[in-house]
């Protein structure tokens, strides 16, 4: 389902008779990725926040940039938004340089900052109308307000909106100009479940319309449910890049994961199962060996002897958070 205001029939008058699709920038080479990043480096003084990141994001796809806090996600996305100059590497958005050609890109790029960006005294209806005035073919502000579920709050000052309502308003601002590329920095942070569903639905609609959507998050569930492509970054570098299926199947599977009370005697258990056991997070353990029935039997008998409950046990196909934790752990242990 397209967003309200997308059907040509919704737009009376000759001014909106033009294609409701977002304008294609002149000179945009066909077949180019919407966003391309090659060897991007961003520094703050001596601190290297982004250390040679490369990836592509395509039109009609949802690319999730996943990483722990401080991984360099926001620095990277703020470079693509035109805020942070690069210390090295090359990146393009719609074939243009995000910093040098910033002014040419503003009409075609929508974004959601991690927080704020709206005057505290302004009302949702006003700020949507304000931003609609900046673009040549904006979506209808009142329909968009309805779409993000804020019609009832149209005249409530921004500071009195809940965190989730503020995020939904911010998303509406990101798409009001019919952008071709949308950057969303932690869009569902602090949003309740209902708002989260609404945001995800809107994001899927953007993708269906052919928009390139780049979302940063540290929420694995979000990445797994939304993404066409996941780029995992940690300490300013890409540690994995692929579709959710590729990431969960290509990663090596020679281990077994289980949950049990935290603080188990790892030495004793390792001896019993005949392989190294590590506690990857409090109460979550990994056995570094091919999961065999014998090993599982040894594991459960050890737990039974020590009167410990087994919370869960996973072998074979991994969940994304297993991949994520292993990849980001490996780097920090290096």
């Amino acid at each position, binding site marked *: 389902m397209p967003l309200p205001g997308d059907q040509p029939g919704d737009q009376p008058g000759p001014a909106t008779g033009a294609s409701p699709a977002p304008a294609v920038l002149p000179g945009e080479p066909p077949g180019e990725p919407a966003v391309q990043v090659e060897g991007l480096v961003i520094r703050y003084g001596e601190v290297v926040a982004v250390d040679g990141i490369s990836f592509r994001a395509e039109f009609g796809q949802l690319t999730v940039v996943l990483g722990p806090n401080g991984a360099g996600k926001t620095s990277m996305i703020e470079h693509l938004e035109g805020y942070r100059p690069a210390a090295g590497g090359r990146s393009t958005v719609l074939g243009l340089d995000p910093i040098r050609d910033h002014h040419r890109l*503003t009409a075609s790029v929508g974004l959601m900052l991690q927080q704020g960006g709206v005057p*505290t005294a302004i009302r949702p209806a006003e700020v949507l109308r*304000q931003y609609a005035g900046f673009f040549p073919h904006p979506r209808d502000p009142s329909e968009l307000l309805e779409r993000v579920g804020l019609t009832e709050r149209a005249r409530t000052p921004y500071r009195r909106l809940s965190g989730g309502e503020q995020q939904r308003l911010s998303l509406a601002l990101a798409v009001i100009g019919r952008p071709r590329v949308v950057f969303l920095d932690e869009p569902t942070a602090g949003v309740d479940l209902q708002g989260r569903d609404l945001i995800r639905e809107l994001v899927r609609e953007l993708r269906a319309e052919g928009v390139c959507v780049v979302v940063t998050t540290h929420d694995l569930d979000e990445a797994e449910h939304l993404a066409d492509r996941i780029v995992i970054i940690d300490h300013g570098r890409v540690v994995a890049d692929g579709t959710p299926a590729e990431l969960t199947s290509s990663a090596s599977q020679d281990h077994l994961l289980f949950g049990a009370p935290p603080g188990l005697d790892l030495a004793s258990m390792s001896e019993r199962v005949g392989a190294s056991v590590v506690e990857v997070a409090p109460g979550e353990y990994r056995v570094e060996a091919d999961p065999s029935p014998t090993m599982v039997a040894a594991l459960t008998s050890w737990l039974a002897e020590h009167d410990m409950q087994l919370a869960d046990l996973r072998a074979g196909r991994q969940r994304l958070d297993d991949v994520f934790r292993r990849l980001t752990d490996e780097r920090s242990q290096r």
Partner: protein
Amino acid sequence: MSAYLSQLRTELALASRQSEQLLVSLGIPLLVLVFFSSVDVLPTGTDEPIDFLAPGVLALAVMSTSLVSLGIGTGFERTYGVLKRLGASPLGRGRWIAAKITTVLVTEVAQWVVLIAVALGLGWSPPGSGWIVAIAGALLGTAAFGGLGLLMAGTLPGVATLAAANGLYLVLLLTGGMIIPLGELPGPLAAVAKVLPAAPLAEVITGSLTAGASVAPWAWISLAAWAVAAPLAAAALFRWE
């Protein structure tokens, strides 16, 4: 043009909604005008206090709006990421600053209309010839104080801008020849006041709107220097985040 108008509409709506800003931009000048013209305790040096106070509060209104309202409002917009967000839109800096300037000028015109009407009601009789000069002085003062307001807004955190703008406002109110004539200040203090932007603004407006008076040349020099230097400093040092 439509982006500029869209921004201007928002700026005007927000300016009219900030009651604390309305207090500074209209409440204090009106209070000064009405109270001290009725209670003759200030050493105004004129037969009727209103003849000194009326042009003084017109200068004060310019300072209130372009230094305090503009500075504090913009400072908080910067702190809350409003400027950062606008920077990613097609509005552009040129139209943003144009909308800010228009909002200040519209506010000042409204202030002057109210203050002049009240002053005339209180018996003020300014010479008809001085208005062009007074308006030219007000425009220079707007550039000087607007530059200072944006300089603070663009370099200090929002709360620090709030404190600095209000503190500066109070000091300049007392030493700027707006409610107390410069001649009443101790010599060294008056000399310092002349190189700050408030006293020359008050001198230009008072000198042009007082019968038989004229504007001292030092005032034009000092005011023009501020009107050039402050906006240049703001343009050079303003940080958008």
